């Protein structure tokens, strides 16, 4: 097979090559500048965070050996050789895991209800007054930017130690996050049904109920389930500050170096999170499946 490759005359080619080289050089310069800036930022950060590369390597060995230690029972054998001994406290841990799930469930539900009530006032296309929209948007922003565990710390002082503080902290954080996501769904909804309902002389409330809600409710359910999944993870650490759940047991086990307990509780948390992930995934698939059929 012969292919004719046309080669431009030298003069023309030289000009093109020079232009190409200039373009590439400019791109490379910009990239190099960015890289230098990034490395400088990293160095400054490393000094700020007291990082030492040499210690990192020595400590990394410790990290690996930590996992070796948490997978050993007190008598030095591997944990899986004696599962009964490994999970000696499974009854207690299961109860705390159940409490964790309940905390995230109740917290998510309260958050969903509040977000549901507030989001129509926060969405651009349905808010009746703009000053109200502004206020509610700022409130939601505040509720989702302050980390849940900070709320938990404060609530533990106000409401006393126990799961109630955890539930309320998760509820507030979920209200903020879901309120924003719900409002975004409403903003994407079709406004023609609203006009149709309003043309019949309906009130604002009826417009929301009969024109907006049917369009958005599946999206709401999907986001609420996703939030539940995230909150299970969040609730597993609420115990660190005394706000109930499995975190309490875990923090005691880690701080007091009960090595095999740490691995047992971590394994239980990971398995629970997996199950919740898969379960909510299936449920969301069914919700959207139903939506597609109608």
């Amino acid at each position, binding site marked *: 097979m012969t292919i004719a490759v046309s080669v431009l005359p030298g003069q023309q080619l030289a000009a093109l090559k020079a232009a190409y080289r200039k373009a590439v050089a400019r791109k490379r310069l910009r990239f190099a500048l960015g890289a230098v800036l990034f490395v400088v930022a990293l160095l400054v950060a490393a000094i700020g965070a007291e990082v030492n590369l040499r210690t990192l390597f020595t400590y990394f060995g410790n990290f690996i050996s930590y996992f070796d230690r948490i997978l050993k029972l007190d008598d030095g054998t591997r944990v899986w050789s004696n599962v009964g001994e490994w999970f000696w406290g499974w009854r207690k841990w299961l109860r705390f895991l159940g409490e964790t799930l309940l905390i995230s469930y109740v917290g998510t539900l309260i958050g969903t209800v509040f977000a549901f009530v507030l989001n129509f006032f926060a969405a651009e296309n349905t808010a009746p007054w703009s000053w109200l929209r502004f206020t509610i948007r700022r409130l939601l922003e505040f509720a989702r930017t302050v980390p849940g565990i900070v709320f938990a710390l404060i609530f533990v002082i106000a409401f006393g130690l126990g799961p109630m503080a955890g539930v309320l902290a998760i509820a507030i954080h979920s209200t903020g996050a879901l309120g924003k996501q719900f409002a975004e769904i409403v903003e994407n909804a079709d406004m023609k049904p609203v006009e149709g309902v309003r043309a019949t002389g309906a009130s604002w409330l009826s417009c929301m109920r009969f024109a907006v809600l049917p369009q958005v409710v599946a999206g709401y359910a999907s986001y609420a389930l996703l939030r539940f999944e995230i909150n299970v993870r969040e609730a597993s650490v609420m115990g660190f500050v005394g706000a109930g759940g499995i975190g309490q047991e875990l923090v005691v086990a880690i701080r007091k170096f009960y090595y095999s307990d740490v691995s047992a509780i971590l394994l239980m948390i990971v398995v629970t999170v*997996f199950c919740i992930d898969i379960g909510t995934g299936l449920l969301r698939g069914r919700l959207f499946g139903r939506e597609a059929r109608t």
Partner: protein
Amino acid sequence: MRQMPAANRDELRARYPDIFNRPASARLATPAMLLIALGIFAFGLFDLNFSPTRLFAGLHQLGWITLMMLPPDPGSSLPLYLKALGETLSIALLGTTLAAVMALPVSLFAARNIVRSNFLRFPVRRFLDSIRGIDTLIWALVWINVVGLGPFAGVLAIAVSDFGAFGKLFSEAIEAADQKEVEGIRASGGSSLHEIRFGLMPQVLPVIAGQVLYYIESNTRSATIIGIVGAGGIGLQLAEQIRVLEWQKVSFLILMILVAVAAIDWISGKLRFAIIGRRAVV
């Protein structure tokens, strides 16, 4: 609707049987689900010791706390707080970078178009999943056990927990890449490493850079809280001031966090657009 003539209604009934005569199971499904949801909710309230008296007492207390937070005032420890905030930002930046560097090679093993065998890919994916299933705070506690209290433990905690997330995100980005360019490299005689370097990376790197920037932003948030368990940064100050009930300092610290998060949000948004153009960021 009530004035509708009966004949008309019958005709409608005949024409749309599936709307007028829905089976009982379909009609009962939604109320039943709501009832179950409410039942679990009520059980949860009971089991978690909710009581109206406790709630109102707590709200009363919370009202007092809010009043005492005003006005926000750092007292004489402003330099200390600024240093702690710098530490938090450093933790976020270093932790995310470290995670990205570690996750890039591993994500290649988790991507379907690079490692064809399900048998090899499955354990890598499960490994990444289990790392992601454990919260950053737990990793922070573990690292404190290993390297001691301080910001270094925070950096490593963020690095490990993001390693799981990045591994998954990067491998998805690699799977979404166009195969034609890789085939082009192969057709011109490139080795499989050439395929990755010249066929995949130019497509994948901008996406990855966008994701890393997004994570630096969200890790600023995580980095503020890992201090609560002792891993350095502004969270340490915040937890301390809450414990000693210095509410004016607490509100000042919360304000500082909000401002810092907003600033990082803004900067990384600008950078993201500069890197990948006005394309939507996943």
